[in-house]
């Protein structure tokens, strides 16, 4: 069994009348890259800040490398923290930002300089040492913030929506870069995101959170294929509802003739997204949904909007009705693309 990087045991936290965390327990294996995934207000950032010591839990314990850190001050925990809005020291150059932790630890000057240049290399910011944060792009600032956190060789790295303030292109580049960096540096890393594609792309383990609770913990693929409940299924990847059942759009078959259990549907709209084609339809009973086809499949059917087709769910899931509600934020589900 892998050693434990971080262990959170039964942590609860309230802010005035809002309960941010309800008896949360998670385990993060040493050297792993774990994502805390959930909609806004799910408690994921609070959990990260509790691990960092920036928030005190009302109850429960936090262990870092097997050591009880619950009552430790942030500066004694050996964590690196990266903020969504970079938290760059605006009055310091890139060099001094990265050197901050080393100067606090009163490292020798030469040693500090070598270490900073090593990190500038690592985050591809050579030549930027004398710039100020205001002279950097968002992506560069965030890489600087990462280097600053890595400089003191933290036991764990905590990233709070690290790419949340960046535009889509830079986001994608940076998350590939983050994964490569993690392969190189191998420090236990936890990052918070509300973007399930980002979580699945980067992490080895995902903790799905909702309303202060952990809904499921698992590998990205397991969560996608074996979601524990309605919430996880609809949060990790797109989903259609057919009566009580939940179906992934790629598990919906679109046919021109009725066949067995197929249902009649009218095509509302056809969206071409390159290789993927989305067919949005309305069933007889008024229920709407969409099927995900490949371009070749769609071309073969020669669909037009308004046309009557027959849809059949391949693999559908039915959860206990007592389970949680699906997230209402439609955008986040469709963002999968």
């Amino acid at each position: 069994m892998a050693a434990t990087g971080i262990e959170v045991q039964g942590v609860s936290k309230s802010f005035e009348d809002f309960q941010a965390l309800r008896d949360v327990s998670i385990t993060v294996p040493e050297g792993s890259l774990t994502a805390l995934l959930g909609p806004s207000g799910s408690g994921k950032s609070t959990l990260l800040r509790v691990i960092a010591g920036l928030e005190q839990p009302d109850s429960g314990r936090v262990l870092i490398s097997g050591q009880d850190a619950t009552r430790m001050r942030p500066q004694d925990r050996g964590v690196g923290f990266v903020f969504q809005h970079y938290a760059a020291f605006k009055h310091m150059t890139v060099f001094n930002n990265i050197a901050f932790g080393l100067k606090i630890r009163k490292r020798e000057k030469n040693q500090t300089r070598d270490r900073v240049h090593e990190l500038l290399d690592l985050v591809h910011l050579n030549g930027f040492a004398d710039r100020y944060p205001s002279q950097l792009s968002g992506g560069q600032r965030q890489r600087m913030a990462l280097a600053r956190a890595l400089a003191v060789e933290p036991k764990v790295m905590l990233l709070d929506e690290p790419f949340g303030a960046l535009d889509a292109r830079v986001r994608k580049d940076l998350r590939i870069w983050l994964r490569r960096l993690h392969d190189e540096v191998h420090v236990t890393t936890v990052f918070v995101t509300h973007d399930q594609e980002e979580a699945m792309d980067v992490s080895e383990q995902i903790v799905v959170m909702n309303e202060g609770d952990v809904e499921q913990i698992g590998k990205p693929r397991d969560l996608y294929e074996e979601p524990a409940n309605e919430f996880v299924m609809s949060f990790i990847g797109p989903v259609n509802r057919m009566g009580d059942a939940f179906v992934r759009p790629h598990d919906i078959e679109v046919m021109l003739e009725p066949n067995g259990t197929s249902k009649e549907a009218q095509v509302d709209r056809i969206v071409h997204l390159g290789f993927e084609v989305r067919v949005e339809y309305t069933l007889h009973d008024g229920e709407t949904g969409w099927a995900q086809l490949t371009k070749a499949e769609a071309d073969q059917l020669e669909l037009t909007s308004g046309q009557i087709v027959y849809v059949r769910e391949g693999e559908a899931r039915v959860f206990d009705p007592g389970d949680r509600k699906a997230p209402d934020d439609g955008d986040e589900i469709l963002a999968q693309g």
Partner: protein
Amino acid sequence: MRNRLALRFVALGYLFLLLAAPVGLVFWRTFENGLGPAWEAVTTPEAQHAFWMTLFMVIVAVPINTVFGVITALVLVRHRFPGKALMNAAIDLPFAISPVVIGLALILVYGNDGWFGGWLTEQGIQVIFSYPGMILATIFVSLPFVVREVVPVLREIGTEQEQAASTLGSTWWQTFWRVTLPSIRWGLTYGVVLATARALGEFGAVSVVSGKLSGETETATLFVEQRFHQFDLTGAYAASVVLAMMALAVLLSMNLVNSRRRS
């Protein structure tokens, strides 16, 4: 174009009539009879003592207001406690209350018949009609400036940089010196300059608590008044000019700081 010129004319005309002309006249009247009499008037032992008194007040009151101003601003911005709104309002009291009233209030507390005036006198400490009272009055009137300049800057920078510093191993004190203070330095400088200018020009409160003992508890502004009442107009104008120069130097240094910030 015409509108813009008119606007400029109104602004400059207003400034000239109300600010530049009276101050300019003081300068003109001072050197009416040449440099000699003016120089003599401000180099008498009495005058020199008055200028030193004013400088002394500034040197003591401004640093105290700077330190406590920063602490107060930190508490106002970063802490939540009952009575915070009241404290916030109290900071502006020196703006709202006439300096004369402030002076009288100090006498009520520290005067011989005041709250602890009697007790202090027994300990051999005289506050009223002496330096401590004058310093208290100067502190009182120049108190809001640092707080009022630092609070918005603290709000703007937020706490993330400080949190980042703490995760990097920095203690509260290290974070304050390395992150918070450098981040608020421009607002702080501005506040210090304004407080200094205010302390230099203080008249009302100090006039009430000082007893105006010439050559002892007389500051530059009190000296100007005293000369004026003695019909020594040259002396009064010359001392005014020196005071104005001191204040101008302070304001210019602020502009210098401001232009440095922009570059």
